[in-house]
């Protein structure tokens, strides 16, 4: 049995190949780290997802709030907070921004004002006037640049903080008519969803050609306690299976699980437009 002497083991570390291997390993590790932290893919610039406010209060109300801030700008209310936010915390930061620096530089030469010159010659006076005019223009430019930078900053702030303002109108939200001021679910949408949930009808019960056009109209009156006071099928569809199914749905919906904000009389139109669109 042969034993490797210690000096030979140590000589491995002195081998130039070992050093190269170590370097390659280090580089690979750094590359992997860079890839995963997203430095190469610019993940840091990814836009923030819009924030939605989900209303978990399952209470039917007359004027529900939307599930997100109102995308329509409220002029009076919005103007005040925006000014405030710009005036106090943002302005000093903007002054130190690098965007402003290159334009602000030309004001520096104005500092060492060569005012106490001993003999002001007439040509020098004119030169001085011109110089002061140039300085004034430069200062004005700097102020304008600063204002532009502030405007940019403000726009960026609006983008990041007021994400809801940039949410497209067709993004789905909690309640379709949520423009009110009450926390809860729209009473109408609540009743609609409850009846729909209780409506069971197999498409195999109906003639396929009738699915797109079949429709019935019912009038339902609910008390504020959520109890069905009366109902009538105003315009039956003429299909016994369809009419029977919606009668069952109404009977199953005779007691809502929540009281309503007030008495409701609803005209409910039952049809299969959505089903027809899916099965087409």
């Amino acid at each position, binding site marked *: 049995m042969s034993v490797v002497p210690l000096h030979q083991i140590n000589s491995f570390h002195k081998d130039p190949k070992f050093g190269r291997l170590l370097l390659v390993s280090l580089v690979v590790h750094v590359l992997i780290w860079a890839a995963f932290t997203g430095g190469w893919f610019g993940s840091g610039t990814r836009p923030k997802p819009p924030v939605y406010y989900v209303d978990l209060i399952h209470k039917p109300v007359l004027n529900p709030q939307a599930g997100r801030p109102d995308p329509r700008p409220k002029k009076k209310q919005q103007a005040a907070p925006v000014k405030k936010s710009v005036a106090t915390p943002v302005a000093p930061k903007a002054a130190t921004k690098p965007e402003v620096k290159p334009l602000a530089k030309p004001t520096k030469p104005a500092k060492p004002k060569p005012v106490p010159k001993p003999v002001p010659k007439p040509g020098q006076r004119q030169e001085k006037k011109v110089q002061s005019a140039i300085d004034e223009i430069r200062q004005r430019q700097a102020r304008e640049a600063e204002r532009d930078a502030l405007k940019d900053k403000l726009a960026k702030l609006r983008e990041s903080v007021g994400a809801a303002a940039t949410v497209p109108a067709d993004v789905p939200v909690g309640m379709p008519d949520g423009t009110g001021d009450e926390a809860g679910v729209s009473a*109408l949408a609540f*009743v609609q969803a409850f009846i729909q949930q209780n409506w*069971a009808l197999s498409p*195999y019960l109906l003639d396929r050609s009738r699915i797109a056009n079949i429709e019935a109209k019912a009038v339902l009156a609910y008390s504020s306690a959520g109890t069905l006071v009366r109902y009538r099928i105003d315009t039956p569809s003429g299909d016994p*299976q369809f009419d029977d199914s919606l009668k069952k749905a109404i009977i199953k919906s005779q007691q809502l699980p929540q009281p309503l904000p007030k008495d409701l009389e*609803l005209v*409910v*139109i039952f049809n299969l437009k959505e*089903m027809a669109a899916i099965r087409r």
Partner: protein
Amino acid sequence: MLLRCLAVIFLCLALPCTALAATEIEISSPGEQTIPLGLTKLLSEQGTRADRIADEFDEVLNADLDLSGLFRFVDPQSFLDDAGRVGLFSNQVNFPQWRLLGAETLIKGTYHLDGDNLVVEGRLFDVVNRRLLTGRRYVGQPKDIRRMAHAFADLVLKALTGEEGPFSSRIAYISNQTGDKELWLMDVDGKRPLRLTNHRSIVLNPDFSPRGKEILFTSYRANNPDLYRKEIYTGKEAKLSYQPGLNVAGRMSPDEREVALTLSKDGNPEIYLISTSGRIRKRITDSWGIDSDPSWSPDGGNIAFVSNRQGNPHVFIADIFTGKTTRLTTRGKYNATPAWSPKGDRIAFTRQESGRFDIYTIKSDGTDERRLTFGPGNSEHPRWSPDGRFIVYSSDKDGNRAVYVMRADGTGSRRLTSLESDCRHPAWSPRW
């Protein structure tokens, strides 16, 4: 004074109207597209436990109703004590209990043995309205339990849709189970297979007469593809057409007075009409191409068939009386085996695409083409159930060729025959 009174009355009338102004909402799709059904097992009236009868009835009924696509079964594990109660009258059923489980319909049944006879009673209840929808008593032998279950499934469909189901009918098909391709008959669920021919040759293309008493088929028994007719109950068999060349794809007219078939007695396969005694009455097609696979429209006025007269095989429709022919399919390179639905609105056929056959349906005016099968393998020979709700077909998607059934929209496909033998050319019988 009078004006003031009138104003008060007007306000009294107008105010409640404005307070209760009806708002309109629209519900454009049901929340559930199946009917929740509580399906209980048969209970013995005598208190005896013959679980085999109850289990078999339950299995058949469950499979039939599941195939219909109408129902969502309430989980039997959640059943409460009413499922174990024998009462079959409306006032004996605990409807609130079933409402609690979400059921809208309920099936309950009982059975008892009366000597050698088995008596089964089934009831279908409307849980929401607390009323009996339909019910029937069946008397027979214990071996008839499957037939009773199929009959009750048909009744359930009739009560809910107004049209009887097809579960009591049967399906004919060709199988090589005995080594030769013979004609077989089975239940709609693939059970109780029965061999009908013993030609020890090649039998193909079966079709039922509209009243279901006879089957037409082609056999090579006499070394030529001749058309035979066979009475199902008596087993009597006779040659119907034995012209030289092909005598294939015989289909009896809806009034059972004529048979449309493909003959190649003059060299080129053409569609002919023959009488039920085999005499040629009329030549329907006359073209240089091959014309085959006739299928009658339910009114007996038209025949759909396959022809390559315009190049690739396509489905055409011929008017029996005027002889006018119109092309139905325009897509695909190979369209075959048309089958006219019993309601007359659609025609099922097969089309080869990407080297594979799949089943399609199309309206009889050539619009609204729909593909029904997408799976692997070839799906061929579509034939409609007598109510037009289902399509039976053969496919090799699971390996060996077998008979399958699906709903007319292509959903709910299930295999009916085993994969041990080659089964093809299914034909659905009319209701008996």
